[in-house]
């Protein structure tokens, strides 16, 4: 009984603070989401006032239900960036299919490049490959080749790793895939959005209770809203980094 009351009070407090400072709820420690590499193609697109972004991913890049498309992080990202970059038309299109492995996503890259001509591709991957037991090495090759193709096709890339899921943590071995993504990000000089560490931090800090079983969409929607916020910040920061480096070179 007391636990239930405490939980309720906690929830109310949380709701109150969340409403008062929507940004504070998404807070992560310094350095967890940071622009390590510049994104010159995005900077150019912003200068040209049109930023075309494509999200390639699996089920965790989408939310089910009516209005899910607008509430999942790709849709939110469009709104966030639109607000951050006044005067720039931002369009985000999503290519998310459940259970897609990195190799299957790599196969659709040429088509996405041809039809959308994105300046930025957010590539979310890892979980489907881990569940299916794809060789981590094959996973890494798919990412490497995919990122190279995207660079050649004129797109910058942000890699997004898997979600932190406490209830299934002991059932899906993510380590090798997380390592592979970190390696490819470093090797190809692309930014990594470390979704896993971010969510783990939120769970530990009590920002979101990720163990809770629910059918309701509200927490999932708030989590995705935070992804979008942090992702937008990463993109804006890396554009700033690009300009700094260009100035230093001039």
């Amino acid at each position, binding site marked *: 009984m007391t636990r239930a009351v405490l939980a309720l009070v906690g929830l109310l407090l949380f709701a109150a603070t969340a409403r008062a400072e929507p940004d504070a709820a998404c807070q992560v420690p310094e*350095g*967890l989401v*940071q622009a*390590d590499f510049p994104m010159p193609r995005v900077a150019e697109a912003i200068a040209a006032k049109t930023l075309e972004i494509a999200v390639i991913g*699996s*089920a*965790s890049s989408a*939310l*089910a*239900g009516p209005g899910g498309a607008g509430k999942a992080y790709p849709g939110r990202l469009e709104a966030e960036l639109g607000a951050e970059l006044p005067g720039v038309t931002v369009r985000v299109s999503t290519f998310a299919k*459940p*259970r897609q492995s990195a190799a299957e996503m790599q196969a659709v890259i040429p088509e996405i490049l041809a039809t959308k001509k994105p300046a930025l591709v957010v590539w979310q991957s890892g*979980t*489907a490959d881990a*569940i*299916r*037991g*794809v*060789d*981590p*090495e*094959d996973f*890494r090759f798919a990412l490497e080749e995919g990122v190279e193709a995207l660079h050649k096709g004129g797109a910058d890339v942000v890699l997004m790793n898997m*979600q932190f*899921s*406490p*209830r*299934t*943590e*002991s*059932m*899906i*071995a993510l380590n*090798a895939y997380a*390592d*592979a993504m970190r*390696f490819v990000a*470093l*090797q190809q000089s692309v930014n990594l959005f*470390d979704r896993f560490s971010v969510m*783990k931090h939120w*769970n530990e800090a009590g920002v979101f209770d*990720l*163990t*809770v*079983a*629910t*059918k*309701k*969409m509200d*927490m*999932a929607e708030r*989590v995705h809203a935070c992804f979008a916020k942090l992702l937008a910040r990463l993109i804006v920061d890396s554009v700033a980094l690009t300009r700094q480096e260009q100035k230093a070179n001039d």
Partner: protein
Amino acid sequence: MTAASGRDLRLDLFRGLALWLIFLDHIPSNVVSWITIRNYGFSDATEIFVFISGYTAAFVYGATMQERGFVVASARILRRAWQVYVAHIFLFTIYMAEIAYVSASFENPLYAEEMGVFEFLRQPDVTLVQALLLKFKPANMDVLPLYIALLAVFPPYVWLVLRAPTVALFVTVAVYALAWEFGLNLPAYPSGHWVFNPFAWQLLFCFGAWCALGGMERIGGFIRSPWLVALAVVYLVVSFAIVLTWYVPPWTRFVPKALAEWMYPIDKTNLDVLRVAHFFALAVLAVRFVPADWPALKSRWLQPAVICGQHSLEIFCLGVFLAFAAHFAMAEISDGIPMQVIVSLLGVVVMIAAAALMSWYKQIEGRHAGSRAQPSAGPAGSSP
């Protein structure tokens, strides 16, 4: 490494410690796992476990082979492999129960993708057969299949080490090199390959066997040389510094890009050379600074680890189960830091209690826990 009187307690001690560390590492999101060695260097407790398992297996079955011949020793090794197989299937059943419970009780739209891990429950006919074939192996259940595979081909290797140790060593290194060159590995289900590639990991198991059957006397002087000890220390410090940058992302930039590209990814599946070297460096220091006749090895303070190491198969299996149970308790009750500490400590205590119980059983049956040192006592029931 063998003490004159037979059983080397250092092996039991280090294997017992490795078993605790493996248990702690298997509990996800566990603050206590910060003490485990994988956070301070390239290798982890698995290397220690596999090496010592090879060493003790050769020690026991090598003696059998010399006294009673190839057939009897092989029969005993294969019976051991069968025991490990049964233990693995037992653990798999527990895992299935847990996963089936979670799939029935947990739902959250945020994790639609992660729920895919329960798909295989829909076709148990295929999954169970693939598990029996050791092709379908859930997370954290890859070590025992490796052990089974290694034991299954162990008899001819022991035979070879007894006759031509140098050739045997050459063979094991050659298999390791070929595995890397041609990407040899066993297939897994639903796709991919074994998480612990037996063609690569046999290197440590067989090297352990080689050391047990006379190799240690041959390289003893070399590994105690001050130059090698100094080199080992340098390597451990460098690898510690590099591992530190994994946990503090802003420090990643201090690792030279050329070094990073050459070094990463450090492959656990195929037992990366950097991991082997790290294990060897640890072993060199252990041999140098922990003498075989160290009195503390018989003290009551180290007994808990020593007895766990003496019942390694049972305690390993128990550890896998306890890690499941600990994660389950964390998910159901609380995943806070106090809970993480409690389940970690409780798990280690249960492992010690179980090992003590097994030692006691052996005692009332008239054998000492370390009795395998005397082959006449029959290694059949002891745990290589």
